[in-house]
């Protein structure tokens, strides 16, 4: 994502506001980019920096090839200053260097850009020195503060920065991004339906976790209908050993919920919207076998289980009880 038009595909409002401000030369001194991981905050910060520095912009779009544009990306631009946490937090030394930079004129021009990542990890003291700079911006400086949530930023900073909230990505965007990163679509769709956070979705692919988990849930859902007598064994031998902690049980329940929603979609003729795209045959079969009423009951049962999982019910008991409810007469 390197241009305003690309940004507008995912964050249309932000792209429009920022592009207009660049166009009119009316940028604020400081912006706070707030939003989940993968929503494009960092790319948008770089885009804004380039649009601010590039001398060959066309309708506020940076040219991407000039010296300014290239160096802004490679980290070699002497007047673009990036701060990211050194370990857990932004350290005192980093802030000292930043403060010193505030006191100097630009190296090449009066234009300076500061991009601060994970702003919430700054100490109050660091935030305060930043604040002083935001209060008396001399020269043409632009600061972009990036954070996961504006709620964690000092109110004094919030009031001096223009807040841009990046909306979470819709599932098909996450799927697309995952596929672009080389993951298989059937698993990408599943991951994208579990989270809108691209990085979290990516982590699900560590050690093939998502593809294994998915297969195991598919087997259970299949057994429940085709070999009901085996379902109990599948739970004990396949499901429980894999989804071990509470968090993973929740994910297993989510995967089951998505399954029943897919069956429902089959019944109402939205087959192109299903998540388990490789299971179309089984889904179709179950769409005939399960009444809409039973499907509704099953969805309710999974949702109840999810709630109970949050309330300290032992996982073993929880899943066994769910199994009983799912196997109740259709």
């Amino acid at each position, binding site marked *: 994502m390197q241009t305003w038009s690309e940004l507008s595909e995912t964050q249309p409002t932000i792209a429009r506001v920022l592009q207009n401000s660049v166009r009119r030369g009316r940028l604020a001194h400081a912006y706070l980019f707030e939003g989940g991981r993968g929503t494009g905050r960092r790319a948008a910060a770089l885009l804004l920096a380039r649009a601010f520095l590039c001398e060959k912009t066309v309708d506020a779009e940076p040219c991407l090839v000039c010296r300014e544009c290239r160096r802004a990306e490679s980290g070699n631009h002497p007047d673009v200053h990036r701060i990211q946490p050194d370990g857990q937090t932004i350290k005192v030394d980093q802030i000292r*260097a930043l403060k010193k930079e505030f*006191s100097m004129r630009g190296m090449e021009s009066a234009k300076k850009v500061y991009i601060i990542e994970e702003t919430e990890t700054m100490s109050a003291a660091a935030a305060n020195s930043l604040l002083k700079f935001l209060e008396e911006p*001399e020269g043409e400086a632009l600061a972009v503060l990036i954070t996961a949530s504006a709620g964690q930023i000092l109110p004094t900073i919030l009031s001096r920065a223009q807040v841009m909230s990046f909306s979470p990505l819709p599932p098909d965007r996450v799927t697309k991004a995952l596929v672009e990163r080389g993951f298989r679509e059937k698993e990408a769709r599943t991951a994208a339906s579990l989270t809108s956070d691209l990085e979290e979705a990516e982590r699900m692919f560590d050690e093939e976790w998502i593809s294994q988990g998915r297969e195991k849930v598919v087997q259970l859902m299949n057994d429940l209908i085709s070999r009901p007598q085996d379902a109990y064994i599948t739970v004990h031998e396949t499901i429980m050993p894999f989804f071990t902690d509470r968090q993973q049980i929740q994910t297993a329940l989510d995967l089951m919920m998505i399954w029943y929603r897919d069956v429902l979609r089959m019944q109402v003729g939205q087959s192109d919207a299903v998540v388990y795209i490789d299971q179309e045959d089984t889904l179709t079969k179950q769409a005939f076998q399960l009444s809409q009423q039973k499907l509704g009951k099953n969805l309710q049962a999974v949702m109840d289980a999810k709630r109970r999982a949050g309330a300290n019910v032992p996982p073993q008991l929880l899943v066994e009880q769910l199994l009983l409810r799912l196997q109740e007469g259709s």
Partner: protein
Amino acid sequence: MKFTIQRDVFVQNIQHVSKAISSRATLPILTGIKIVAFDDGITLTGSDSDISIEAFIPAEDGDNSNVDIERPGAVVLQAKYFADIIKKLPESTVELTLNDQMVTKIRSGSSEFNLNGQDPDDFPRLPEVEEGSQFTLKTDLLKALIKQTAFAVSTAETRPILTGIHWGMESEKLMCTATDSHRLAMREAGVEESGDVEFTNVVIPGKSLTELSKILDDSEETVDVTVTDNQVLFKATNLLFLSRLLDGNYPATKNMIPSQSKTNIQVPAKQLMAAIERALLLSDGKNNVVNLKSLNENELEITSVTPEVGKVTESVSCDAFEGEELRISFNGKNIIDALRVIESQDVAIQFTGAMSPFIMRPADRDYMLHLFSPVRTY
């Protein structure tokens, strides 16, 4: 790019520009030395973004031939490796060849190194000397200006603008001012070749000027100075030194100098310095407070007391004394710092009461002035 160069000349100039390169560079490109081959010579550039040094090696230097340039071009090479390699090569000449992929072949006798380079376009763009915007200073004068003001800059981070030396030029007079808000040093110099340049609020980091002073060769006669919006350039024969400027407004200092005085004294600088140095011997280094009292028209008493340790009493005879009796306390170390850069035999000091700043200057010159705040005991 392809050239063959005298190794000793190369090594010497690499050392010059390496002084600007920091081991903790913030930009990856600044870990490198930029090498540009022109038809008439080679430039080397190093920078830590605060200061930059550019050295020019002319192809021909009088009767000597330094470089034989086959093909112009440019590259940035890792300073750490490059400097060491060149230093240790076996022969007296070195050949550098740059291929398309920014890989540079370094050859000398039987040795051959291939060093990966970076794009020279990524290197920060340095301001250029524009004709007509520069003025010229004698090297020894420039060094004196620096020495006589740089010691007074602030080292605290609280007011960064005071870590710099303020330069202002008006009617062919350059005025340099430094203060840490407890003492102030001013040095004025007439500039003959001022090129009608005038400016104010040019604040150069004290550190940069101290570094410049170290680098400037005493054999250089003059230095050309250019002030741009962001940087100041000092150009000697084959050396260009640049420093970024401090941002912000330097406080007005002219109106701080008292125009009247109540007590005027004149004392031999050496004796005063020796007396204060001894008075400070027992101080624990926190405040360096020294008390001064006029005993009579010819004699001053300097004392210092440190609890737990003891008291020192010193007397200094003065050459001239006029006005009211005197009793004042001050930071002795600040006075010593100033006395060290005053080259005259006698100093004149003007006091305006125990709670007012006082002025010290060489008795026989008026181009230099030092201002000190007193210490209040309460």
